[in-house]
């Protein structure tokens, strides 16, 4: 979309990446979400990347307060929100300053020119007005739109104050971009009606702003051309757009239903995990009990209490909160109770980058506790995949009577993609057994084990099965407190073997691309999209490279060593300093190399393509 044609046409393109950015109070997340839903409803494949500051309202007009939302939409399968922007909407100078670098040369730049006063420029650190820069116009298709004035004009009859009128500017911007990409206004009009049903004035103002933006694009004939992205050829079925945290919540509810357990969800608010709590708390009619605890430790220990009583116990946090939960995770290992611990990872260490993504908690999940304390680990690869992977976590938890860690991250938690809605009636049950009561006076053995080394899940209230569990070392079979040397060794080995046995219960590792060859790219978690796309791009150029994405991180699939050994080189791109790489090197003695980035941002496809090509030379 780089050439400017003289007459107004609609150009068919395969995909486009658009970013809305402005002050954190400008409603950019909403603008982005609306554009996403509309594109998804139009049948595109979409991938999104919301990027917002940790401060709720950083000083207005400053770079620290810039909030952005990026959408990649396409007529084919896509896996990332895009590297470079085809269009950028900047609502103020600070947004322009922090986002312009990502706009592709020749791309569309839409600027709210009303917000470029000397004061605004100064706040953003400009000494001169960048809009006066000739280079800017040479490099990009620049459209200066006095959005503040136009929005006020559009809504003036409604009688809102200036402040409220200005709040409608995001809908003006969305309307304008809808025209640019030939989108229907209907889904957003429906959204406005629904969202502001109790505030008819605000609803009307937003409707007018949206339409004004659209009509402005149309009547001013300002853009050289419109663009159209046709529907993608997705597998048949009913689709909806879904965010990672939403998919996680749905997955938990589904897993509860499948296992016949009621969900107890203990959580303490933390970015970027809180939306799971918000979503679950809406669905109490599924028997979901959400408990907003006084702290992270109470969140997990209350959950352990509920799990002891037969609940599907789930606790959620992000890295700092997980650090606080680790002692209790040890208790769940010792008491051998099923539990799902969700970590929506963010930039660390310490408070780190609360709203930015990272995948640096793998070793925390694997090794973060005192003693030999094995816990199975699974990781989701995309927003929609959270739905399946979190159910898998619960399946393993009840099958092996163990806590299981589910890793998500800020990128997939807040990102979204189309999700083919599953047929609920076709979901297989997750088998759960609670031993029945007895009155024959025989001794119940709470640490007797089945072939998977799982102990029975006897719940309070059952006659004859009274037993005590706790954090002290247990004698096998009886579950009595025991400090003997041999027993401790036996129990350490047993807990370790039990978790190792999970490998018999999960699928073998598959690869995409050649079964053997020059290079294998190994990824885990939210970097799936970038890695899959990069490998695919290089292969289309003739490169001998395959991709292996791990859902199961502990234990690894049984054939993983063989898979790795079939390639001359192994590349492990990670948003950390090489945590999976370290594990693969230690476990399989492969000379894996890394591509590591910790900038609070996902990988760009292009940087991975470069790295792969470099290794193939």
């Amino acid at each position, binding site marked *: 979309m780089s050439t400017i044609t003289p007459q107004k046409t609609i150009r068919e393109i395969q995909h486009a990446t658009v970013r809305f950015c402005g002050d954190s109070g400008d409603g950019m997340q909403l603008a982005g979400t609306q554009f996403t839903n509309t594109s*998804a409803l139009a049948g595109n494949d979409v991938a999104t990347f919301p990027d917002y500051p940790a401060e709720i309202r950083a000083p207005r007009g400053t770079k620290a307060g810039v909030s952005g939302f990026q959408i990649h939409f396409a007529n084919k399968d896509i896996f990332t929100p895009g590297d470079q922007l085809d269009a950028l909407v900047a609502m103020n100078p600070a947004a322009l300053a922090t986002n312009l670098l990502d706009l592709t040369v020749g791309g569309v730049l839409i600027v709210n020119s009303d917000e470029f006063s000397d004061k605004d420029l100064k706040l953003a650190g400009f000494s001169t007005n960048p809009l006066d820069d000739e280079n800017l116009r040479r490099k990009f298709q620049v459209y200066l739109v006095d959005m503040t004035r136009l929005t006020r004009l559009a809504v003036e009859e409604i009688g809102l104050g200036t402040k409220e009128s200005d709040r409608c500017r995001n809908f003006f911007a969305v309307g304008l971009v809808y025209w640019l990409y030939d989108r229907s206004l209907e*889904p957003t009009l429906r959204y406005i009606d629904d969202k502001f049903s109790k505030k008819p004035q605000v609803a009307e103002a937003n409707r007018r702003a949206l339409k004004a933006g659209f009509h402005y694009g149309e009547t001013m004939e300002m853009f050289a051309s419109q663009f159209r992205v046709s*529907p993608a050829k997705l597998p048949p079925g009913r*689709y909806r757009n879904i965010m990672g945290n939403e998919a996680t919540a749905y997955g938990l509810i589904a897993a509860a239903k499948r296992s016949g357990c009621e969900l107890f969800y203990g959580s303490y608010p933390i970015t970027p995990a809180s939306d799971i709590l918000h979503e679950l708390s809406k669905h109490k009619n599924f028997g979901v*009990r959400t408990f907003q605890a006084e702290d992270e430790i*109470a969140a997990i220990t209350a959950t352990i209490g509920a799990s002891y009583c037969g609940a599907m116990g789930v606790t959620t946090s992000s890295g700092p909160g997980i650090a606080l939960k680790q002692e209790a995770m040890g208790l769940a290992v010792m008491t051998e109770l099923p539990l799902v611990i969700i970590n929506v990872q963010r930039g660390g260490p310490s408070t780190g980058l609360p709203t930015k993504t990272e995948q640096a908690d793998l070793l925390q999940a694997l090794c973060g506790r005192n003693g030999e304390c094995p816990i199975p680990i699974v990781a989701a690869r995309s927003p929609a995949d959270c739905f399946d992977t979190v159910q898998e976590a619960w399946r393993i938890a009840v099958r092996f009577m163990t806590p299981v860690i589910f890793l998500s991250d800020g990128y997939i938690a807040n990102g979204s993609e189309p999700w083919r*809605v599953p047929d*609920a009636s076709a979901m297989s049950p997750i088998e759960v057994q609670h031993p029945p009561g007895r009155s024959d006076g025989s001794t119940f053995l709470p640490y007797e084990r089945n072939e998977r080394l799982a102990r029975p899940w006897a719940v309070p209230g059952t006659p004859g099965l009274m037993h005590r569990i706790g*954090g002290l070392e247990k004698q096998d079979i009886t579950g009595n407190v025991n400090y003997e040397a041999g027993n401790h060794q036996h129990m350490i080995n047993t807990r370790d073997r039990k978790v190792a046995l999970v490998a018999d219960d999960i699928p073998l590792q598959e690869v995409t691309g050649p079964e053997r060859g020059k290079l294998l790219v190994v990824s885990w978690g939210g970097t799936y999209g970038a890695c899959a796309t990069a490998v695919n791009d290089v292969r289309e150029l003739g490169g001998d490279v395959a991709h292996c994405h791990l859902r199961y991180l502990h234990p690894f699939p049984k054939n993983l060593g063989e898979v790795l050994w079939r390639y001359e080189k192994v590349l492990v791109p990670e948003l950390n300093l090489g945590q999976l790489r370290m594990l693969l090197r230690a476990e399989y003695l492969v000379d894996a190399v890394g591509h590591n980035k910790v900038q609070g941002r996902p990988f760009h496809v292009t940087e991975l393509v470069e790295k792969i090509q470099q290794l193939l030379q």
Partner: protein
Amino acid sequence: MSVDTALKILTPNDFASDQDVRWCPGCGDYSILAQMKKVLPTLGVPPEKTVFVSGIGCSSRFPYYMNTYGIHSIHGRAPAVATGVKSFRPDLSVWVITGDGDALSIGGNHLMHAIRRNLDINIVLFNNQIYGLTKGQYSPTSPLGKVTKSTPLGTIDNPIYPLSVAIGCEATFVARTVDTNIKHLAMVLKRAAEHRGTSFVEVYQNCIVFNDGAFDYATAKDTKTETTLELEHGKPLIFGKNRDRGVRLHGLDPEVVELGKGISEDDLLFHDERAAEPSLAYLLSRMRYPDFPEPIGVFRAVERPMYDELLNEQIAKAKAKCGEGNLQQLFESGDTWLVE
């Protein structure tokens, strides 16, 4: 089978586990364990419907000695574990056994929140004013200046009073008793069990090894009538071997007075455990030996909605209003589109 259990007359032995009790000989915990086993059969709750939850410390070994369900959890977290148990299974009778370090130091936060939520659980705090299991460091209830292993020059930490803390957290049931006063101990445990909401009981408990005699003033036969005051609802605050002394209000402060000489019972403070405001209970919780006799008995017993009940009511209401959750409807909520 459930019929058998219901018909059976329970005895203390039905609540005793087969595990050897491993407290030090002469520990005050034995007495509390014995009274608990005596009280439980009188409550009409079978062992399988009873759960003991504890944290870490000497007192927290308690669940192992009960033939009920039990969790010996981690340090300070028992109230939180119990919150999960009771929230998910309101039909169970849940006891939290804790100590002064477990409840007021490492677990202070959970204690506060369990009490304010007013779950229908019973919290029994064994207060021995010392860390026993870690072998003799001072605790948050140790008196100022106390010389211990970690404070050879005496503590410089001001102590807190468990009952004042509980009242400050909006407790609906607050009581105090003494390990050696077994009848009183049994009475208080029973009252705690019968209360709907969080019951908070402080037991003066002697640690024979690391803090022997800390409560001698309150337990010694010759002094206990002078140093303690047994609270009775609706009765004036009277104490002393000859019941000749009492407590009356002077402004906002209590004062000890002798009866006779123009002062009658009617001039004394009357106990009202059901007072809507916790002011009286708080005032009583601040009365310390040697300036005052220390009250024992039920300080406060009022009703307030309970978290576990409210939580499960919300579930029931949501089901009644929206119907039992339907997964397909959930998945398809919001905008969807069909790909042919």
